[in-house]
């Protein structure tokens, strides 16, 4: 460790803790303004709320009545994201039926019309279409699965996005501008000088066990729901970075059940929805105070049934549909004692811990996916001011990696000799970078193999995300590519994916098998709360298939010889040490 001197030269200007959308956004903005950045993520990129949300950068019509500023900034920034990452966006048109049994249903529809008139004023900011008032017949025509006696309804326009891809894009951009991103690396302590100012962080790589110290002028706590825990690592009391943790769950189905998203009221009057999202349908979401383990947030059966019951009232076919999984995240909402979670502000704020005796340490609290870029800009403005940097943000005009130009998936399929559907999914996730991935096929045609037939995912993409996007486990690959999340639950692809990840990261085939089993068991656990009649047979099949090919995690043999601190083989530890030494 370096000798503690007042005038020591820090390794980097800024250390960002947290690889969610806020941390990734700050890392990108800082590097664009010429600051050197190191980022540490304890789990994986977009592991928390950033990768487990509704997958929309919606304008937040919900906030219009009591918090119109949130709606304005969300819509404005939604427009910016469309410009910098056009490949990641897809339109989600919503229908909101108004049921006759509601008292004053006709009046409600009129009020809704007036409300969306107001929302329409914000729509141009995010290139959305204005709303339309629809008759009951028109609603039925647009979505024949709708049930119930309605007086009509309204349509409105939102945009869908893959939050994980958004985070990865920001981090790849930051890295290409010099940032050092470390995933599966936890910060164990925020180091401070005698005068209380921050000096850097102590970290440990959770896969290799390698530990070290990195010094900086500024440390940003961008750990979302973990923010109070992270603040405590710097000797602060958790309340100095407090949030109101709100758990939200989603259930996803094996296909797209509707063309339109449908907004419905749950039994308690809350607004929930069924949305077509990428190649599946999703229902969401709940909002409940959460005080459990943040590293292990799982949707419960009760939460799933609450949502299904709500949607079934308006779209009864949901009862027969095949739910194949759930995801759950915890919103880091601004702290407030009293209001019910839906009523909490979605605003964000930068907490300067200077007044708490820790100058140079900042916490990012609150925010939402749609306005992450703005939040990152505000945070970076504060950092720039502190470090005397006079460069304004450009993150709203410079494209994210892959967003530089549009690629035609059909042409991509023809040029690369792959299935059009595989090309379309690849292009969605990687934009213009998909060209780099198919370039790999020229060197090795076997990488054209479809590893995950459900999504589909090519072997070339798996290799790419391991080599260029920090994926180090099967779970990580799945998060970035959606491998193994389809109808077969990873039964056909997890083992092969594990073998590839092990090979590329210098681990043994056994480590690959263990990674595959970890992924399969984790995914099965997340599915259990939503398993229905059809899926039950698939689950039984998956168990049988995995047991016959991979065994169980209890039965799988352990590697002999020296083990790293986390059970990884010596080869992996050596690789990790080499990587550490090179830095």
């Amino acid at each position: 460790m370096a000798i503690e001197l007042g005038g020591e030269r820090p390794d980097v200007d800024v250390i960002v803790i947290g690889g969610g959308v806020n941390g990734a956004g700050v890392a990108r903005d800082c590097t664009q303004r010429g600051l050197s950045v190191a980022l540490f993520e304890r789990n994986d990129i977009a592991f928390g709320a950033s990768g487990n949300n509704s997958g929309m950068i919606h304008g937040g019509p919900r906030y219009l009545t009591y918090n119109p500023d949130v709606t304005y900034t969300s819509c404005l920034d939604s427009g910016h994201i469309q410009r910098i990452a056009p490949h990641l966006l897809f339109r989600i048109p919503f229908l909101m039926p108004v049921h006759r049994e509601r008292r004053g249903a006709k009046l409600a529809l009129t009020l809704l019309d007036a409300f969306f008139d107001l929302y329409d004023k914000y729509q141009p900011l995010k290139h959305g279409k204005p709303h339309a008032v629809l008759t009951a017949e028109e609603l039925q025509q647009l979505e024949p699965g709708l049930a119930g006696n309605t007086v009509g309804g309204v349509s409105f326009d939102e945009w869908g996005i893959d939050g994980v891809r958004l985070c990865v894009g920001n981090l790849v951009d930051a890295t290409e501008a010099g940032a050092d991103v470390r995933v599966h690396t936890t910060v164990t302590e925020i180091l401070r000088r005698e005068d209380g100012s921050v000096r850097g962080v102590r970290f440990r790589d959770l896969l290799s066990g390698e530990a070290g110290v990195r010094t900086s002028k500024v440390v940003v706590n961008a750990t979302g729901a973990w923010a109070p825990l992270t603040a405590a690592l710097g000797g602060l009391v958790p309340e100095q970075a407090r949030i109101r943790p709100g758990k939200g769950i989603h259930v996803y189905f094996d296909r797209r059940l509707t063309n339109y998203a449908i907004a419905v009221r749950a039994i308690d009057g809350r607004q929930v929805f069924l949305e077509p999202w990428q190649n599946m349908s999703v229902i969401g979401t709940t909002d409940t105070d959460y005080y459990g383990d943040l590293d292990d947030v799982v949707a419960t059966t009760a939460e799933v049934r609450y949502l299904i019951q709500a949607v079934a009232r308006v779209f009864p076919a949901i009862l027969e549909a095949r739910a194949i999984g759930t995801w759950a995240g915890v919103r880091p909402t601004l702290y407030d004692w009293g209001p019910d979670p839906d009523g909490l502000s979605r605003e964000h704020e930068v907490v300067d811990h200077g007044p708490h005796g820790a100058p140079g340490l900042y916490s990012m609290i609150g925010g939402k996916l749609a306005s992450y870029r703005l939040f990152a800009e505000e945070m970076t403005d504060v950092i720039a001011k502190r470090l005397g940097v006079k460069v304004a943000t450009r993150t709203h005009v410079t494209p994210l990696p892959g967003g530089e130009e549009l690629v035609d998936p059909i042409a991509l399929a023809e040029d690369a000799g792959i299935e059009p559907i595989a090309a379309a999914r690849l292009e969605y996730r990687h934009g213009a970078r998909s060209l780099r991935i198919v370039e790999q096929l020229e060197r090795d045609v076997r990488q054209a193999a479809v590893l995950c037939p459900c999504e589909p995912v090519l072997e070339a993409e798996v290799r790419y995300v391991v080599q260029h996007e920090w994926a180090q486990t099967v779970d990580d690959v799945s998060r970035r590519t959606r491998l193994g999340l389809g109808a077969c639950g990873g039964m056909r692809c997890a083992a092969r994916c594990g073998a590839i990840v092990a090979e590329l990261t210098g681990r043994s085939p056994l480590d690959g098998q263990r990674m595959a089993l970890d992924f399969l068991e984790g995914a099965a656990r997340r599915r259990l709360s939503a398993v229905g009649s059809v899926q039950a047979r698939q689950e039984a099949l998956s168990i049988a298939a995995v047991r016959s090919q991979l065994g169980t995690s209890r039965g799988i043999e352990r590697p002999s010889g020296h083990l790293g601190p986390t059970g990884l083989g010596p080869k992996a530890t050596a690789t990790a040490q080499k990587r550490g030494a090179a830095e």
Partner: protein
Amino acid sequence: MLVVGGGFAGVAAAWALSSRGRDVLMTWEGPGASALYCGALDRADWAGPVDPRPLSRDAEAFLAALGCWAPPGSMGARLATTAGVLRPARCRDRALLDLEPLRGQSIGVVDFGRPGWDARALAEAWSQSGWARLTRTEFRVVSVAVPEAELEALRWLAPADLAARADDPAWAALLGTALRSAGNAESPLLLGPWLGSLPDSVERVRELVRRPIGETLCDPGGAAGWRWEAARDAWLERSGVAVRRGEVHALRPLEPGFEVLGSWPVGADQSLLEGHFSEVILALGGVLGGGIRFLSGAGPSGRSFSLSLDAPVALRLGGREVALSSGALGADLQRLGLEALSDVGLWVDEQQLAHAPDLYAAGDVVADRPRSALEAIYAGIGAARTVCRVRASISP
């Protein structure tokens, strides 16, 4: 006698009954879990030693009668999976390569350049497994040259389709010739489950190759399941056991025996056929095979788990009878755990009697038993033996 279910348990029961001279009718609706098996009989603890006890005489005779399985060796078999594992098993499909007698040799892993078959990665994974290191067995990639015209099919056909292709004698000849001259002419060859969907096809290729050659275990829906079904159908034809394909809806208790209600397709039309049977063996399969249904909490009212036919028996799970489930208030699989899907089933006594007179159960439909092919075969034979013993004791 009626045996409901055409999987391992049902066929084993029918075999045991017919070999004891009983008059048996078999019925089943469609393929179940047995047709999805991977080629290995039993699910031993992979890390532990192989169970050294020989199979029961009946079980060995059954395996021999069906003909698609190799007789169990004293060491058990050591089989390769496409997930890169070398696993033990008691017995295996004949087409699979048993590595146990090939200890210490250099095994050639066949490579045609199939995208889904990374021979190099598999060879490395198998070579690094504990068993291979202990026995100094090596795996090396052997590239096989095939005529350009056949390359497309070899590379891009799905595994099961490729296996079916090998049933064509011309294709088998081509494959056999290509494999014969591959790599070191002595070394055994290991390849994917592509050697044929019929037991005979595999032997045809083997005759041409003239050295040990065999498959890895297959994924569900692969060639091993097809070969089992072919062997079963051939045995049924030889033995003269009557089979009526169709769906049983209900068993109504009579004194004695059962009235059986179901629909059996006859020719093009569906006619309802009612029958009276003195004893019934249920070998319907579990959740995977379709013998037990699971209704999610949000589904229509009913039991969360139910038998796929109406019979005077109750399902049990974790030592308790399965409770009612209705609307959004039902059994919570998250709390019960994934194992519930394989543990749930009928409660039977040591005689396989399903706690109703003249009703027996065997295989995956039974609660709290290991879900393995060998267990199903033992249970099927056991149920048949009990039936015969009970009949003998009440007959004058």
